[in-house]
């Protein structure tokens, strides 16, 4: 379907617009069976989540959350935003490998990774709005009537917004292909490298920024997790958090959307996973080394004998050290199940780490602990469900998992351009 808005000087807008409308309406319809267990369960969760959110906005945050004066940030910030954004780190790492380092091997997973990253930001960073007490003022730091430039959160807010735009631009050629807008696609494609470079820069800053949020919570975060290096630790761990998510999500997507997977991805998928496993292992060893230095410099051994010390060791050894070793052995022996298990362990380790900083180890000295209500958990699950719905809708319609042919011509054009220049 191509749009010819002007044909021989005479605008033929009407019929084209009508055809475009029918196309869009057709695409909006759900495909496949509606009454699947997944659909039924997620619909119930989303509905319940919606009801809970109505209560939350009518009666205040205290009506459905266990947040308190002592624990102002709970599951929605600690898991949805801080952990969710770490999981979304795969997009900046994969675009770096493909567009900056020119590792064409990973090209087939670029689109699905960027789509995942984009949706993660829209939904998980968007979940921030649910947590804001006064969300109608959310534009204040954007429109410039009150720039709190000394705030780390100011940086994070701006970077979230800009990065969402950058990721949308990175993904937009797929949208243009879906709509059949070739000329638009060419323009958008030309923006990709710029968006990628900008996106990586923003990611480095706000991945670390999420950690820097806790720098002023000195004395509140348990010393085993507090250090001046939280920002660096957050960036480094976002590399293998993101890639583990790519491995985990890719393995599921590969099965569920098998009919949508293109030849090139089908042929190289296993090889890609092995490559990612190796990079994960490398990043995790760097991270472990950094943690070791922080541990020694922070003179943290006094805490090791306590229950918190055991909890810390479980996180570092059980959910970073062990999966790092599994990634390495999975890569060496080429065993995908080992790699997948390592990815799951790594993701659990990231959940542990982010929650230990933001929730579990926050005000660790208090007798009364914050535990999320079932309602907070339902809303979180609703956000995840809604994200999966949108992801499924897009993957079933746009060229996300199969775009080899189109892209090769695109590359051809690019190469010719460069040679000519």
């Amino acid at each position, binding site marked *: 379907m191509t749009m010819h808005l002007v044909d021989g000087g005479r605008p033929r807008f009407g019929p084209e617009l009508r055809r475009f409308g029918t196309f869009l309406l057709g695409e909006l319809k759900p495909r496949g069976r509606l009454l699947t267990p997944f659909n039924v369960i997620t619909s119930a969760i989303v509905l319940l989540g919606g009801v809970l959110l109505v209560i939350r906005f009518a009666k*205040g945050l205290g009506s459905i959350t266990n947040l308190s*004066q002592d624990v102002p940030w709970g599951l929605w910030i600690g898991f949805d935003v801080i952990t969710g954004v770490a999981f979304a780190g795969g997009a900046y790492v994969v675009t770096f490998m493909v567009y*900056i380092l*020119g590792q064409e091997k990973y090209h087939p997973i670029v689109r699905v990774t960027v789509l995942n990253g984009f949706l993660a930001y829209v939904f998980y960073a968007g979940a921030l709005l649910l947590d804001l007490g006064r969300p109608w003022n959310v534009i204040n730091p954007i429109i410039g009537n009150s720039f*709190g430039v000394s*705030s780390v959160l100011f940086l994070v*807010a701006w970077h979230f917004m800009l990065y969402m735009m950058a990721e949308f631009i990175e993904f937009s050629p797929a949208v243009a292909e879906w709509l059949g807008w070739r000329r638009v696609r060419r323009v958008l494609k030309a923006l990709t490298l710029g968006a990628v470079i900008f996106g990586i820069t923003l990611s480095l800053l706000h991945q670390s920024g999420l950690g820097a949020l806790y720098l002023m919570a*000195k004395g509140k975060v348990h010393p085993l997790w507090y250090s001046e290096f939280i920002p660096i630790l957050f960036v480094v761990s976002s590399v293998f958090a993101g890639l583990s998510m790519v491995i985990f999500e890719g393995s599921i997507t590969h099965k569920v959307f098998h009919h949508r997977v293109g030849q090139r991805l089908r042929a190289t998928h296993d090889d890609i996973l092995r490559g990612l496993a190796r990079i994960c292992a490398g990043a995790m060893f760097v991270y472990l080394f950094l943690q070791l230095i922080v541990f020694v410099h922070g003179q943290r051994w006094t805490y090791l004998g306590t229950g918190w010390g055991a909890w810390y060791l479980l996180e570092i050894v059980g959910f970073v050290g062990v999966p790092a070793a599994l990634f390495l052995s999975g890569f060496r022996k080429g065993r995908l199940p080992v790699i997948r298990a390592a990815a799951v362990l790594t993701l659990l380790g990231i959940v542990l780490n982010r929650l230990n900083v933001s929730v579990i180890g926050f005000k660790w000295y208090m007798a009364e602990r914050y535990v999320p209500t079932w309602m907070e958990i339902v809303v979180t699950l609703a956000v995840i469900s809604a994200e999966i719905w949108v992801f499924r809708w897009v993957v079933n319609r746009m060229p996300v998992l199969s775009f080899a042919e189109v892209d090769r011509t695109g590359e051809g054009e690019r190469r010719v351009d460069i040679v000519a220049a």
Partner: protein
Amino acid sequence: MKRRDLLKTMCAAGGVSLVGGRLGAEERPPTAPLADRVGVLVDTTKCLGCRMCEFACATANDLPQPEASIDRSVERQTSPTQWTVVNRYETAKGPVTAKRQCMHCLQPACASACLTKAMYKEPEGPVRWRESKCMGCRFCMVSCPFDAPKFQYDSPVPKIQKCVMCWERLEQGERPACVANCPAGALQFGRRSELLDEGRRRIALEPEKYVHHIYGEREVGGTSWLYLASVPFEQLGFPADVGETPFPVYTREFLYGVPLVLTLAPPLLLALSRASRARQIAEGEEEEER
């Protein structure tokens, strides 16, 4: 000495302090010298624990009146509806009562945490919250070393609530309500530098009575509220581990790094991508030649 005398006279005269004229928007210097900000000196050795300050605070700020009878054995915290509390502590020197509220730090963590500048340090000293700007993210609460800001969790239009040093009263030349209503003279309002002098004077006059430490002089880089006590401040529920570094300093290095990354990373990435693409093209041509 003259100014201090003047201040004393003014305060004694019942609230018509010299602050009145200085707090006017027109005359306010863009940045008052740190030492010259207003504050309150709390002498816990004089405090009777009568809680008059709690009631005066509630009246002045349109808050519900605090409960008349309380369980003294429980350490109460300030809340959205009660911006100051008086607690009693059993110490080595017998029971000591102490009033708590926002410390009005000289370099407040809450204000530097606020991305909308809703939390705002007036050049004169009080740390205020501005309703029209706040988005309710509660980062101020996460950052405050004294847990002063409180959030209305039970409201769909929640506010951040805490002591604002009776900002409106100060503008009209009056002292904070708690100071004006303290029957024991345990609270003294004035310029911070002079309050420090006064605190040191009292310690020097009765070195046996006081611990030789003015809490708030150096803590977190200095606070506008200053405390004298007969026992170490840990025994009065004050956090002893806050250090002397102003809290905004903890994120300063990170924020300094931001412009560096933002400007240096893109050209490096661009160079890297050019280099790798040139290599790819060269490899491609080699293959073609073969």
